[in-house]
């Protein structure tokens, strides 16, 4: 199988998965306790009004009709209207997407920048202080709850020392870049960076710890393999052996995890978003669930699910280019 065919197969699988997500999310409404009408109609609504609302929302039709209708609308980008605000669900969700993506990517960058060197140092200095330091950091990072870390960072770095703003996102990345090109001013980017630093560290810490450990064990594995010994026997400098050959092979599984984790971050930043009042998808979903705002819940979950699938596809593509063997498996 060529790499091209492999990716085509993966894409088709992805489409199938998204369809599955849409179906499950659609059915959620029918298995969740509580009739949506209870939450949408005024409390003292007459039965006639309730029926009228059900008819207007199309909730009185057979499930399969609603399902087909939902799919057809979705294909046109219509996710329905929020029960709560009456605005188009798709508009609200896509307005939140940049903030979520920025945070997920920034957290990933923090994690990759910190964890790969840490993991490598840890592996190459096994059982030395540097190794203990790095593994100790991983243990702490994996064990620290997100919300606590976020609150502590704010208390120390913002409230005590005034180095960073405490919360919020005053400007998005794209508007900040636009400001740079139109006004030649770095102010937007500086503001953006100041606001995203603490949330990115908070969200990226667990992830950093995870990848540090993964890099360390992968690197140790590689360094123990026979081809490394052959390279050393050939007289290749140790730096080349480590960083060109061993690290490259170590990074293959690491990239997979980073990719999968990026998907998790898109949907999983709820707590961090809450601590930093970050206007992302996580908070949107939680609020929608609390209000039983079905169009918003369904739309957000579908976007998060599709995000996962797309990230996985990208990882597959990258993986295939790094290691052409995968396409033949």
């Amino acid at each position: 199988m060529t790499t091209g065919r492999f990716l085509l197969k993966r894409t088709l699988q992805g489409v199938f998965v998204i369809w599955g997500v849409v179906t499950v999310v659609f059915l959620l409404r029918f298995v969740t306790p509580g009739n949506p009408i209870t939450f949408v109609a005024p409390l003292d609504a007459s039965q006639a009004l309730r029926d009228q609302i059900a008819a207007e929302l199309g909730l009185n039709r057979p499930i399969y009709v609603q399902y087909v209708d939902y799919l057809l609308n979705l294909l046109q980008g219509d996710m329905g209207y929020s029960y709560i605000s009456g605005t188009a669900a798709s508009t609200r969700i896509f307005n939140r997407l940049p903030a979520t993506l920025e945070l997920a990517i920034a957290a990933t960058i923090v994690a990759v920048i910190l964890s790969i060197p840490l993991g490598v140092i840890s592996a190459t200095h096994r059982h030395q202080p540097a190794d203990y330091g790095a593994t100790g950091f991983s243990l702490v990072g994996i064990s620290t709850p997100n919300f606590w870390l976020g609150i502590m960072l704010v208390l120390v770095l913002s409230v005590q020392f005034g180095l960073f703003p405490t919360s919020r996102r005053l400007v998005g990345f794209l508007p900040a870049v636009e400001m740079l090109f139109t006004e030649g001013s770095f102010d937007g980017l500086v503001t953006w960076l100041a606001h995203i630093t603490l949330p990115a560290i908070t969200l990226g810490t667990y992830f950093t710890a995870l990848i540090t450990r993964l890099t360390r064990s992968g690197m140790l594995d590689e360094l123990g393999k026979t081809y490394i010994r052959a390279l050393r026997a050939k007289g290749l400098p140790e730096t080349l052996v480590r960083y060109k050959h061993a690290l490259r092979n170590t990074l293959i599984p690491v990239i997979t995890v980073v990719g999968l984790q990026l998907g998790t971050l898109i949907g999983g930043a709820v707590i961090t978003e809450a601590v930093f009042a970050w206007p992302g998808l996580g908070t949107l979903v939680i609020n929608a669930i609390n209000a039983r705002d079905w169009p918003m819940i369904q739309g957000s979950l579908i976007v998060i699910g599709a995000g996962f699938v797309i990230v996985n596809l990208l990882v597959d593509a990258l993986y295939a280019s790094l290691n052409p063997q995968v396409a033949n498996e």
Partner: protein
Amino acid sequence: MTDPDDRSTSRRRFLALAGSAAATTALAGCSGGGNGGDNGSGGGNASGGADTAGGQPTSGGTEGSDSTAGNESGGGNESGGGSGTGEFSVTITQGQPPSTLDPQNHRETPTDNVVLHAYEGVLARDAEGKIIQKLATNYERVEEGRVRFTIQEGVTFHNGDDLTPEDVAFSINRIVQEDVGFASPQADQLAGVTGAEVVDGERAVDVMSDGFNPIVFASFATYCDIMQQSWVEERSGEEIAQNMNGTGPFQLDTYEQGVRVVLSRYEDYWREPADISQLTFNAAEESSTRVNQLLEGETDVAVNVPPQDAQRVRSSNSAGLSAVPSTRIIYNAMRYDVEPFSSPQFRQAMNYAVNLQGIIENVLSGFADPTGQPTLEGFVGYNGNVEPYPQDQERAESLVEESGFAGAEITLHTPVGRYLKDVEIAQAVVSQIDSLSNVSCGISQREFTSLAGELTDGDITTGPNFYLIGWGNATFDASQTIIPLLTSDGALTSYSNDELDSLISEAQSTSDQERRASLLKEANALCREQAPWIFLNRQYSVYGVSNRVEWSARRDERINAYAMSSTS
């Protein structure tokens, strides 16, 4: 795409939940609307909870009786406004962002706090809760079921058009009549009102009610924002939800849905322009986040500062606390139709078992008042001779024996994070009841939405037997708590008692205000004695306020930036 105009449904808020005031009220609590219990608002809220949902405020304080004729003397405007020329920016952080900018399509305090700066009603309340005139210069009863508002001259909407009586009548009808615009979730806030019409040849509007409607002026003082008829009719529901065109002291600058709302001073305001030139609303559901913003000078007002953060604000040199009793009552309802709660002795025993003062001191750090009746102090119908139940474990045990339900096993259902310290209050109540020798009590932590769904479906039998909930009542009037919660036909009732029903129906049909108040007082005394609830605390609204800003908290959970001024 579906036609956005076809939104009559989508516009209803979930607050239907709360239903007759109820829900709304109910919502208040924590800021976090539904999230961490540290919040209290609303969700909603902010003060209302977060919740998203916020609760409905009520104003507290003075008697809210409506005068049956004409102007209340001295019913001036609330103080506020100023030179209206200086630059003064103020930022307010609530627990939840507004869910819409349509002032007639929501039931939440956080939304209310934003839209009240751009939209105004015919009447309003001052900081003490007294009824004052706003867009009406005079209000009077014309005949049974008909009241008349004379409309202020020289008022303009933000688009420059003059306010007309037609706009007022249209706005009222948009709320109370399902065929005007849409089915507003606020219809029950104007309970009894059937419609409005312009008076021929006069700058006045008549409002019709079915029956005498004793609380009609109290309702209009709290609810019903006035919108411009042509502006509303030319726009889809979605546009109305994202723009504002009112008569208030601030006009909309920018709106980022779910993130922030920026308003600026409306220079042609019909009264003195505001001191504040730019007003920004943000949201942060975590109370610690709001407090940190305040301490760092990123915001000027933070809603719902929980007891555990109060000290940090007090000891800072840039901000202070402003606390005031709210209009929200927290209580444990006991369903009268199931054993053992069918026994008045057993219900009284539950009240004697609880150490309310201890809960207020230890769980709420003193930010609460004890209650012993459904109606709060300062409301019409509050009975000053009724005391909260004291803790008396022995008496509780003997009453349980008397009731014949010794050995009863009961479970208290409580929402988590909806009201200030709700779970902690519930745990204290449960452990105190459980310590009685002849009752055992457990706790069931519930997601607020599912609990509220059981309570608001109009069927008493679907709700739990014993549950903690909160109720805000913005009308200042006992009836709006007792009717929905304690009468036989109440939308969220847990109780039924013929004597109480007849007291209330007589109160609601009499036109003699003094007699009405005394009937309501009698009803409150009866409630204390019959103990349909375990009476718990009156919640406080606690705000963190920057030293830059001169402002005092109001009892009704409303934040009125027009009344704010700069301290410098």
